[in-house]
Every structure is written in C-alpha cells, then in structure tokens.
C-alpha cells in the first residue's frame, strides 16, 4: 500500500472552495471524490471529515446549500459558492501561492546541489 499524505489542517477548506469554483454546485460525496481524484489518489481523505468543514464554510457564509437531485436520481444536498465565497477563495489562493512560493525559495538552492 502506498503511503498517502494526511490532509493538512486548513487546506481542506481551500480545496473545497476551489472544487466548487471549478465544478459549480456539487454534493458532499462529489466534492470528496473530486478532491481525491485531483490529488491523484495521493491524499488519504476520510469523507466524513468533509462535512464539519462544509458546515463551517456555510456558517461563515462562503457557501450555501440546497437539496436537489443527483445525476443518478438520488436526493442530495448541493453546495454552491457564494459571491463572498468566491472572493474569499481568491484571497486564500493568493495567500497560498505566496506561502508556497516563499517555502519553495527555501528549497530551491538545495535542488541545485543535488
């Protein structure tokens, strides 16, 4: 079994927002599958941990939810990015890029030597 990376605290919310931004309204299961796929199955994700995060995002007003019907005719709750959620995503994405860029600089010289 390949060692899978545990998901980092705080990044899950960002992944959810990005997923909703990319795919539009989606239910919890769909988001979970999408995150797993996007990570190329490198992430070990307990689907259940997604729901408290979705609730938190909803409480903070970044997303809204609504009952609907899935592609397989199942009743499902769909989540949708709000306008403020989209702005939040932009902010967080920017921060994320900055952070990774900074961290990347620390590692760049080492790569040259190797």
């Amino acid at each position, binding site marked *: 079994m390949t060692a899978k990376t545990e998901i980092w605290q705080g990044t899950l919310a960002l992944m959810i927002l990005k997923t909703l931004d990319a795919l539009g309204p989606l*239910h*919890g*299961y*769909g988001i979970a599958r999408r995150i797993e796929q996007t990570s190329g199955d490198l992430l070990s994700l*307990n*689907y*259940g*941990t997604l*729901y*408290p995060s979705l*609730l*938190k995002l909803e*409480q*903070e*007003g970044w997303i809204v939810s609504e009952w609907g019907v*899935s592609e*397989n005719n*199942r*009743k*499902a*709750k769909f989540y949708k990015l709000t306008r403020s959620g989209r702005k939040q995503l932009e902010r967080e994405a920017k921060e994320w890029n900055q952070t990774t860029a900074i961290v990347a600089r620390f590692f760049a010289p080492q790569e040259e030597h190797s």
Partner: protein
Amino acid sequence: MRKLRALLLRLKGLFSKNDDFADELESHLQMHIDDNIRAGMSPQDARRDALMKLGGLDQTKEAYRDRATIPFLESLVQDLRFTLRQLRKNPAFTITATTMIALGIGASVAIFAFVDAALIKPLPYQNPSRLLFVTESNRDIPHAAISYFDYLDWKKQNRVFDSMDVYGPRGFAVNTSAGAEMVPGARTSDGFFRTLGVTPVLGRDFYQGEDLPEAPQTVILSYASWQKRFGGKSDVIGQSVTLYEVPYTIIGVLPQNFHFAPLENAEFWTTLHPALHLAGTCDARRSCHYLNGLARLKEGVSAEAALADLKRIAKDLEAQYPDSNRDQGATVAPLSEIIVGDVKPILLLLLGGVGLLLLIACINVASLLLVRSETRRRELSVRRALGATRTRLIRQFVIEGLVIVAVGTIAGLVSSYWAMQILNGLIPKDMMVGMPYFDDLGLNPRVLMFALVLAGFATALFSLSPALRLSTLDVREGMAEGARGSAGKAWTRIGSKLVILELTTAMVLLVGAGLLAKSFHRLLQVDTNFETRNLVTMRLRAPLSTYGEDPQAVALQRNLVAEIRTLPGVSSVALADTLPVNFNGNTDWIRFVGRAYGGEHNEVNQRGVSSDYFTTLQANLLRGRMFTDAEDQSKPQVVVINQTLAKKYFPGEDPVGQRFGDTQLTPKSIKEIVGIVDDIREGPLESEIWPAYYYSLNQQPDITYWVVARTSQAEQSVMPALADAIHRIDSRITVSYMTTMTARINESPTVYLRRSSTWLVGGFAAVALLLGVVGLYGVIAYSVSQRTREIGVRIALGAQRGTVYRLILKEAGVLALAGIVIGTGCAIVAASLMRKLLFGTPPWDITTLVCVAVVLGVSALLASFLPARRAASVDPISALRAE
C-alpha cells in the same frame, strides 16, 4: 463579523435538532454504494467500503454536531436540563431552598435599598461633602441656633468658608379656593441655594441683597408646590402669591430631585427680610437665636480648622457683646450628618441583622444540599466510574446552585419590593417629611448590583460545599454505600452547633417580639379618662389683623363653637390650646393664696379650654362644676383642676373655692378653683399624670387653638363639612392637621415606636424561626442519612418503629432544648436591655417566655418528625444489602 455570524448560528444549533444531516449522510452513502456496485462490488462489500471511507457513521455525526453547536455549551444545557429535572422531582427541597434564598435576599435587598437611599446615594447638592452645618453652642445646648447679627459677623469675619448662609423654617397661611391653608415654607439668606450648588429649573435664584428688609418680597417654589398649586405652568414666573396677607413675587422653581431634610417639605422659599425696624422682635436682637447656618468649606480647609476659626470669632463677639454673647461658642457638623445622622445607626443595625439572616439562610440551604449530595453518592459514583470528569460533576453542583439562587433571587427581588412598601408604611407621614431621601426608594441599578453580589456569594457557597464533599468521594466506597468518612460526622457536629445558635437567635427575637407586642397592647389599654373614639381634631389659626384684640377673638371662638355644633353628625364641640395625649409641658409655676411660700416651683400643666371641653371629651367631673360660656373677661378668673393636683396640693382638703396665682401672687393672676375633673391624660400614654389646671379660653382668648368635635357618626364623613363651616365664618382661617383622636394616638411617637418595633422584631423573629426550623431539619435529616445502616441493623435486630422515632426525636429534642434554654437566658438579658421600650411587661414575663418556648418546641418537633419518619420506615433488608 463572519465569526460572529457563525457563533450565532452555532448557538441556534444548540436548540434545534439536526435531522437534515442524517438525510445528507444517507444520500452520501447511497451514492457511494451505487458507485461501488457499479465498480463490481457485492452490495455488502459496497456498504462496508462506503462506511470505511466515510470514517465511521457515529464519529462523523459527532464531529458534525461539534461544529453545528458549541460543545461546552451543549453539555451545559444538558446539565441544566438534568438539574431542572432533579429539582422538579424534589419539590419539597426545591421550594424550601428557594424560599430560604428568596427570604434572605429579599430582606437584605429591601433594607439595602433604604441604606442606599439614605447613606449611599449622594445628596442632591454640588460636592455635598464640603457642606457644613454651622450653629452656635452654649453650655446646655450643643446645637443652639444662630442669631441674625451673629450670622452677619460670622459671615464677614470667617476665613474658612467659600460662602456661608442661614435658613429657618416658616409656615405660611395660603389662600386657596377651599379656604386658607397652612403651608410649610422656609426663609433663607440670599446665597442659600448658591452655597448648596442648586440652580432653579425655572426662573432665577435670589440675587445678592434680596434678603434685606428693603428688598421686594420674592419666593422660589418647590417643584412639588409648582405642580400642585400652579399646575406646572411656566408662566408662573412673575406671578404674585399671597402668603400671610403679604404679596410675594414668584421668581423661580426648584429642581424635582431637590430636597433639604432639615426644612422638611417646605413649599415656599422666601428670604430673611429681618424686621430690624421693630425693636424687640427676634430679628432685631443679637440674643435671639433662631437661624441655622450652612457653609461651604474652602478648598483644602478641614472641618476642624473651620471650627477653630468660628470659635475665634465667637470669642471676639463675646468680648464685644458680653450681654448677649456670654458663653456662646460654635459647632460644626457635616451636613450629611444632620440629614441622615439619626437613621444611620438604625439602618446599619438593620443591615447587619438581615445580613446575618441571609448568612443563616445560606448555611441552611448549603446543609440541605449536603443532605442531598449524600443521598446522591451512588449516582455520582456511578457517573464517576463511567468516566465523568470531576470538573463535570462539580459543574453539575455549580449549575444546581445557580438555578436555586437564580430562582430565589428573582423571587427575593419581587418580595423585596413589597417589603420596601411595608417598611415605608411603618414610617408615619409626619416622620417621613423629615426623610425626603426615602421618596425615591426602589430597585435602582446599585440595589440590583447588590442583589447580584449576594446571589454570587450564595452560588459560590452552594456549589462549593457539595463540591468539597465530592472531593472526598471515593468511587468504590460510594458505590458500596459502605463506611462513612469522618467528614460527615464533622459536618453533623458543626451543623448541630449552628442549629443551636439559630434556635437561640429565634428564641431571643420571638421573646422580643412577644414582649413588644404585649407592651403595645398594654399601652393601647391605658385609660385616658376620656372617650377617644368619635373625636375629630384640627388646628386653627385666625388672622392676627382681624382677631388680634381680645373681644374679637372671644367672639370668633364663640362663633366657631356655635357654627360647628349645628352641623349634622356633630354632637358637641370644644376648643383647646393643647390636645390631650400629647405632652406634659406648657407649664405654669403656681403659688396658693393663704399658704406659706418658700419660693419652690410648683410646676403644673396649664391648659386653655372652651366651656364645653369636658362634656365634649366626656371627662368625669369629680367635684364642683365646669365652666359656663358666660364666664369671660368681665368675670373673676376660674379654673378647673385635675385630680392629681387636688391630691398633691390639697390632701384631705376640699380644693373647691381655694385660690392660687403666679409666684408673685400678682392680682391679675389669681384664679379660683371651681371644680375637679378626673385625670385627663395630657402626656404620652406611658408617662405619669402631672398636676394640671384648666382655664377658660373665654377669659384668656387666643387666635390659634385646636378644635375637638364629638361626632355621632363616622369621623371621616364629618371632616369636609367641618372645614367648610370654619371657612364660612372666615375663609382666611387656616385649618391643618385634621384627623381623629384615635389616629393621633396611634401615630403618637410612643405608640408608633412600639408598633413599628413590634412589626420589625416580629418580622425578623418569624424569619429566624423559619430558618432555625429548616436548619434543624437539615441537620437531623443529614444525620439520619448518615445512620441509615445503623438504623437498619437496629430494626433487623428487633428494634420497634417507636424506638427509632424516639432515637431521632431525642437527637432533635436535645438541640431544640439547648436552643430554648440558652435562648431564654439570652432573651431575658436582651429584654432587660430594651426595658425602655417595654410597658407594663417585665423582661422575664413568664407567659411570653412559655408561649415562645412552646412555639419553638412544637416547630422543632414538626421539623424533626419528617426525618424521624424516614428513619422509622427504613427497610432493614435494603439498608443492609447496600453493604
């Protein structure tokens, strides 16, 4: 902002059931299972895999719930629900505990409201702590008033005051549509309000020099007077009002919250206008002391320094005016002391008393809680064993304490409102005008804060005591209900002592209340030697300008009697310069004609009455005759004496026909005794009878006197007609203090003092009794819970139920007896200390002591009966199986 929104949503989540999420999870699983089956799994494997990927159904739900609500709060709500259930299951405990707290907090808050109104709330003046009450002093009187000229010198020569002013009371006759009325007022120097730091809300203050004889007469109205007499109209400024037949211009209205207790409820504030042109008037003499001083200290000057400076001036004045200012010193006191000095010790004593009651109440409730925690040992041990943390269990107790205290405090606040009304009602109206600061009594923020502090203290006590007990709780031991720790025994010992103390307190207070009630009853039974029922009394004052001469005054007196007598409902009427059951005093020094005289002071009460006085009062004539209406200034002076005078000065002689006069036997003063009347009580009910003589008002007329009317129907129904009849004769006659004789007696200081102290001590006693009894119950019940096993063994070994009853009742009886015995001793000592308040009742009054002991004994028996019954009904099998 976002965080707050989230928090609110989570708070909301506390109270809503979230079934939505179960549906969402279900649909999630279904979709996953569908996918898995499509991928070729068997339905069973598909479901297992879906659940595994989810990470467990319950874990997910719990994680979701933690986010949907606030976990800490949620368990708090659970504890609260649990507490409420527990309390509802135990109504006896709940009601007892909350009633205790309500009583304790209600009484404390009510008394504190009075303390706050009198002592904490600042006086409605600018920087009131810098204000001094300033007077002269002499050898006999520490606070002697200031004379006008001394005031002028003090004001000019002192180096310690920013300003100094004087004031004095003054009543005014005011003409109203219903006839003339006596209205309380004041005369002050020009800067009085500036010194206080009070500005009129309407109009202006007195300007400098407005208090001089040549200044125009002006008046400032009190707010209440403005509302009552002038309808609160702002065009009142500049209007004229006639006071004592002199027109005054209204120049201002005082603020609504303004009060000045030394001048009671003065309505018209006028300036001094000393009558300096009339030699011999009080104003014109340096030796006539009638003003009180008010001064504002200069910055940085102490009251002591001010006193020293005033004494220096007084010394100078003494040297300058040796006649009038001999031995005239000076005194100062903080103004607040003059205003609230009298009530301060009483209020603090009461506050101490209710504080003590509250403490006892809290200890009682704490002991009840302990009893409960004892019976809940098992429950707590089980919870502990199942993994409840100690904090969680302690929190349970804190919440329980909080709920009891919260309910008790709310009930206490409501009852304190009533208590305040009752206490306020205990203060008679004419005392109340001297305490205007009690007018806006109520639950203001400071009082509520005080209640909150008390509640916090009580909560701490209640959560702490079972929590401390909990810390000694051994899980295994508790579940086995096995041997008791020593802590239980220690509490029983302390508790017993506390209960004895509580019962002793209750005994002392009950005896006090009993003795006071008995004194009160005895006092009202005192024979006044006249019929006090169906008598209306009122004070009249006729204008000097019309009735200043004797013939006019006599004619008015006769007119009044004749007019009032014809009124329906009035059977007879008389006039008197002083009412009976009032005071001994207004005396004369007499000397008997034809007897040796060594200059001794034969001091006797002298009373001027109209001819029908004795028949109207229904007093007994013992010898001789009463006055006739025809006896006026044209006839020789005659008097009627009371029995005490006859006995004291004419032992074994017939006084009728004898004569006496003043110490010089001036011919004008010689009077002949024509009759002896039974001792009409002139002084207060409790005082002894003084010798007295009555002269005829027809022979020495007056323009101020009391009217005494005997009614043949309810007194109240006649009163309006009486005032009308008087005003028909002359509308400028003022009528004041109209009331009934019985009301006068009930409101008289001696009666009032005993009535109010009976109620006050009685109230305290009732609460103390209740607390003592509940305390006893708590201790005995606790002891029974501790001894359940022992009692079980006894019953198993053949002890009868009756024996068990005796066992428990004996334990309670010993405590009650100790309380009663010690209490009796203390009560006698306490009663001796308040002997002055007792009347016709010795401090060791046996009936009171026995009655109180019986009441206390029976209550104690009732309180211990409940736990005794529980002990007797112990099932030996279950008690022993608990091993």
